[in-house]
């Protein structure tokens, strides 16, 4: 599987990037074996374009991270990222809905965005730019990458987060 890196939060933070370079939180082969629903502290949310995206995605992600005992500052950062994703994902969706896969561990979490157009993942990241703040997604996620979708679907935006800086 090829992975296109879109950058990470802080180029100087090489140690953190290397720490994440090991096995991904969700092994794609493992995902395939799991069948239709996630196991453990994982969830899949498919949302139709509309008012549901921000309130539902934020709640599900915060619940999963809180259950994994993440500190409040990282929860807050993750919420900010969810707001950015829900605000811009549908502009890059291949259809009417976008799917978010969340896999939250004690130290790391992975958020995958599925159902994007061919260039949607890159476009979504670029859209998350805020004046002064910079790119919200790249600042919060430790690793931002694009992976080919499974079963011939469009590419997946993969965001890796860490519980502590």
């Amino acid at each position, binding site marked *: 599987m090829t992975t296109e890196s879109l950058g990470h939060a802080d180029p100087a933070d090489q140690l953190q990037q290397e720490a994440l370079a090991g096995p991904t939180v969700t092994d794609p082969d493992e995902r395939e074996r799991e069948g239709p629903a*996630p196991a*453990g502290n994982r*969830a*899949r*949310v498919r949302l139709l374009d509309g008012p*549901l995206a921000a309130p539902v995605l934020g*709640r599900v992600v915060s*619940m999963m991270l809180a259950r994994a005992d993440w500190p409040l500052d990282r929860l807050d950062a993750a919420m900010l990222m969810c707001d950015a994703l829900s605000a811009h994902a549908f502009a890059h969706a291949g259809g009417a809905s976008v799917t978010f896969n969340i896999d939250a561990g004690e130290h790391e979490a992975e958020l995958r965005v599925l159902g994007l157009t061919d260039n949607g993942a890159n476009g979504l990241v670029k859209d998350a730019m805020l004046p002064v703040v910079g790119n919200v997604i790249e600042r919060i996620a430790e690793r931002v990458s694009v992976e080919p979708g499974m079963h011939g679907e469009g590419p997946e935006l993969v965001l890796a987060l860490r519980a502590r800086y």
Partner: protein
Amino acid sequence: MTPDMELALSARAENIAVVRYALGGLGEAFAVPEPKLSDIRLAVTEACANVVVHAYPDGHYGPMEVVASKDEEALTVLVRDWGRGIGPRPDSPGLGLGLSLIAALADSVQLGHDDIEHTEVRMTFLLGGSQTSTNTLPGTSTVPGTGALQSSGALQGTGSLPGPGGRLT
């Protein structure tokens, strides 16, 4: 019709809280009145609890899906699993009130399974306007605000399902 929300989790007790929390977001987005949202949360919680407790053998955590669709008049919430279906269980660890409670809270309830053998509980909640039951079956007594418990063909004859005002057809 593409649902507004599909939430897939493993059938673990702790995930029921995630479902409830997500429903809070749904209620906020759709401006569902709080009393109605409380009913929805309680009914969906009961349906999810049934999946967690009954759908899979002890120690197995299969999938649980919650699908919500809203139109102008109603919110429909579907809770489904890949388990062993709905049927009588003499050794049930619960009080056996789940389906009765769902029938009392929802405006209509359907039990059954879909084309690929998911066990489904489909609950419809009227939003705004009249909150009376949609139960219009001939010869069925209607209790305002009490849902009708219906079974799709696949579940007919699987045993009686108690319901204060709800009924299994």
